[in-house]
């Protein structure tokens, strides 16, 4: 960089003098170049405009939309809170979708965290082959969810799917005590099939994030604990878990939000139907059905808003609860 200052006034007083009332309007804090104000807004403009048009205003528009009845043709009819009333009092499909979604959240999230952490700890201890394992476990994360769901749908095929074949084999050894369910056509087993798919798909992500957290835990702590005669389990319980709790919290919130928004997996695995007797209908799936199949935009928006509020509340609750179990003192990644 040349050390020749160009003939631009760097003195802010000079610049202010030239700009008069405008610069007083723009004046920021503490001896900064007032032109930075205008520049900053220029820098922000594209991103801010885009976010306003495609995110901030639509959220308000969605609220307005949830108060009308409209099938995209003709004029919207204002119905007030009727859509919400209908959902919360006499819409069986909504109730089903709600409980299904909750089922997915409370099964996927803990399993995902537990398996991911167990694998990460194992990988961190195994010393050898960590690279290869990591590549393999992360592979499903980069795949297309639609392709993955198709493959699982085929694997879960009762008569010719490879998973059913494995269970038939087990059945032979146990003398016919175990037979595979008709996974995707069973009201009981369709949901676990989807849970298995999401675990396979995402456990690599959980594992990789946990691994980053584990590798930030200082080895000295383990050494000191070993000297004090702590067992392996005690070391895990009293050092590892507290120190990676910020990672756990992050993953918990991310996975929870993801599970609430489950759509592609049930959509593809049920061929767009929502499973036998709506067993795999999720809230987002129901939003999709109402908006694009039943021509019920208002109701779809109302469901989306209920989901939004629900996610928001759950995230706030998690945020409250984190004070009790998340340690930020040390080892922050």
């Amino acid at each position, binding site marked *: 960089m040349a050390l020749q200052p160009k003939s631009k006034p760097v003195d802010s007083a000079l610049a202010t003098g030239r700009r008069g009332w405008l610069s007083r309007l723009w004046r920021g804090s503490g001896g900064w170049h007032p032109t930075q104000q205008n*520049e900053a807004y220029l820098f922000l403009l*594209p991103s801010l405009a885009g976010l306003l048009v*495609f*995110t901030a205003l639509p959220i308000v528009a969605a609220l307005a939309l949830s108060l009308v009845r409209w099938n995209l043709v003709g004029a919207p009819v204002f119905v007030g809170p009727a859509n919400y009333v209908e959902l919360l009092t006499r819409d069986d499909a909504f109730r089903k979708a709600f409980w299904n979604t909750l089922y997915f959240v409370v099964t996927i999230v803990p399993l995902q965290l537990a398996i991911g952490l167990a694998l990460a700890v194992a990988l961190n201890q195994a010393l050898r082959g960590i690279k290869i394992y990591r590549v393999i476990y992360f592979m499903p994360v980069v795949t297309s969810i639609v392709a*993955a769901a198709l493959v699982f749908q085929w694997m879960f095929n009762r008569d*010719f799917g490879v998973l059913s074949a494995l269970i038939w084999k087990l059945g032979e050894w146990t003398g016919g005590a175990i037979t595979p369910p008709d996974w995707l056509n069973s009201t009981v087993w369709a949901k676990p099939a989807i849970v298995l798919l999401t675990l396979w798909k995402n456990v690599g992500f959980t594992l990789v994030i946990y691994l*980053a957290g584990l590798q930030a835990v200082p080895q*000295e702590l383990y050494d000191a604990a070993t000297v004090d005669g702590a067992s392996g389990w005690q070391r895990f319980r009293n050092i590892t878990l507290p120190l990676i709790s910020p990672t756990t919290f992050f993953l918990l919130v991310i996975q929870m939000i993801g599970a609430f928004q489950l759509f592609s997996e049930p959509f593809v695995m049920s061929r767009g139907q929502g499973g036998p007797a709506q067993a795999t209908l999720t809230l987002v799936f129901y939003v999709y059905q109402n908006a694009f199949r039943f021509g019920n935009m208002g109701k779809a928006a109302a469901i*989306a808003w209920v989901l939004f509020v629900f996610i928001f509340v759950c995230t706030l609750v998690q945020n409250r609860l984190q004070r009790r179990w998340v340690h930020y003192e040390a080892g922050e990644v």
Partner: protein
Amino acid sequence: MSAPSLASAEPRPPLRPLHLLLHLVLICGSVAMLLPFVWMLSTSLKTPPQIFTYPPVWIPNPIAWENYRTTVSVMPFGRFYLNSLIVATSITVLQLLTSSLAAFAFARLRFRGRNVLFLLYLATLMIPFQVTMLPNFILMRYLSWFDTYQALILPPAFSAFSTFLLRQYFLGIPLDLDEAARIDGASSFRIWWRIVLPLSGPVLAALTIFVFLNNWNDFLWPLVITDSIEMRTLPVGLSVLQGQHSVRWNLLMAGSVIAMLPVLVVYIVGQKWFIQGFTMSGLGGR
């Protein structure tokens, strides 16, 4: 590297049986991870009678390469590819450009309302796409953009998350560099282009991979905003194939291989960057 520390790298004697057990668990897990890929590939090369056999065979005999030709002839996968490529690339470029400009303003410029605006950005992070999807859909129809590239590209092209992530990173670059450049008469734009961006290589690479892959694999928005077969992206095209040939598993699996393979190949070659990309994007969002 400093001199080797006194504490040895391996404080406890290696427990052989434990390690064996760990590897056993990890290998079982790896098999479970890889099995669907193998099953997909195997099925994609089977003739119809081989698909419906019990017990299932893993090695197809004869190998039905023509499944791929058939799949590509019943569905224009080339077109799907092109669409996915256009859409994911455009979104990534636009998102990195707009987010890095905004992040620069938030991290390195002072202006009135900076904190309020940043809070607004943080607030939009909380909004699930499914809620804004419906008004966006209506807006696109109103603009007569339904079933066009603009509709596929523009709504996802602006991201509070990317802005937030880049801002976190930009804050770590010494401000003295800007000061010195300003004394030399450089404009903010020049500082952004010549100083801040070149010093942000790792986070830009991470975000590029993250954003590209997410949009390459995105399903819901392309599904609702496109209609004609020539505007479909890969995942949507695959689900259309499923709708039309729901029991021709060899074709469905061939389609899945076609959809997965390029990403998998690129991933195997550059796995380090992929994993880094997700880790950085993941943890940066805290």
